[in-house]
């Protein structure tokens, strides 16, 4: 019953919306029809590119396994170290709090303060699936501009974090405490 409720809750909005839309068409309620036209357009817009984007992301996932890149963490420094961090972050997906456990893992593997925060920065700004959707919705010019502006800023933040935390016994915890 509980599981049923949970499943049902996910569908409640779409069900409600469809019922109201069908009703609008039956009784000829104009705002309902107009809203459906808007929804229909954005749905078609979405369904004609998002599935293909995800296939691209899936292919990236199998051809550039994260585990392979993770092996180099902590061994490389300087520009190469930063590049590995950015590349690793680009292959991820999901919300920022999903990156915290990864940051802990990077810390355990010997990544420095600067690189850990560069990883978080790249995670917020340059994940491949996110870039794909951003191009789809806001245009390639927007994505290129935003990425080029963000990159130096989050690398700079990495350096600043290192300066401010270096002598402060900084540690990454496993999140349980």
């Amino acid at each position, binding site marked *: 019953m509980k599981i049923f409720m949970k499943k049902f809750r*996910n*569908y409640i*909005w*779409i069900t409600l*919306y469809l019922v109201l839309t069908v009703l609008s068409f039956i009784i000829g309620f104009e705002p309902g029809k107009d*809203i*459906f036209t*808007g929804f229909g357009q*954005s*749905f078609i*817009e*979405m369904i*004609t*590119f998002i*599935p*293909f*984007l*995800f*296939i*691209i*992301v*899936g*292919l*990236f*996932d*199998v*051809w550039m396994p994260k585990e392979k890149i993770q092996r180099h963490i902590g061994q490389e420094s300087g520009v190469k170290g930063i590049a590995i961090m950015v590349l690793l972050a680009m292959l991820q997906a*999901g*919300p*920022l*709090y999903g990156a*915290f*456990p990864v*940051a*802990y893992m990077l810390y355990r593997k010997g990544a420095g303060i600067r690189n850990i*925060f560069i990883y*978080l920065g790249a995670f*917020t*700004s340059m994940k491949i*699936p*996110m870039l*794909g*959707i951003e*191009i789809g919705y*806001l245009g390639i*010019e*927007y994505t290129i*501009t*935003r990425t080029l*502006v963000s990159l130096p*800023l989050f690398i700079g*933040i990495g350096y600043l*974090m290192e300066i401010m*935390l270096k002598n*402060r016994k*900084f540690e*990454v*915890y496993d*999140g349980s*405490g």
Partner: protein
Amino acid sequence: MSNNAIIFISLCGILSLVSFLIDRRKTWEGFKRGWRMFRNMLLPFINILILVSLVIYFISPDVISRYLGAESGVTGFAIAAVVGSITLIPGFISYPIAAGLIQQGASYAVVATFMTTLMMVGVVTLPLEIKYFGRRAAIIRNSLNFVAAIIIGLLVGLVMGVIK
């Protein structure tokens, strides 16, 4: 068919073909992973499209452009930065909202600030972040990113103003 569809379908076709010629099994595995990710986000995505279509219908472009448009000035930035920092909207879902805002007259600068704070600053997740990095690091990271988001918004707005 939209430009997007053409770009993504051709890119997907080329990559799949190359991948298929190199390794059939891996390609199939990639398709399966992609499909799984798509399936997981489909329902929340449809829900947000419903919400956006409702909001676009009920909130007039005048209101959006007054508070979030090019002439909104500091107010627009402040609204975008604060709302973006506080709310926790999954990345995928936020893009139709951003596109809708721009369509209704919001400026690129304001939308870029909103999207960047949304991604980089997390007030709601701050307690969790503190558990991982400690209070000091978490607060500094969020503050620096808040400033960075405003710089990003301003610069993106500037460049987009020149391009568009």
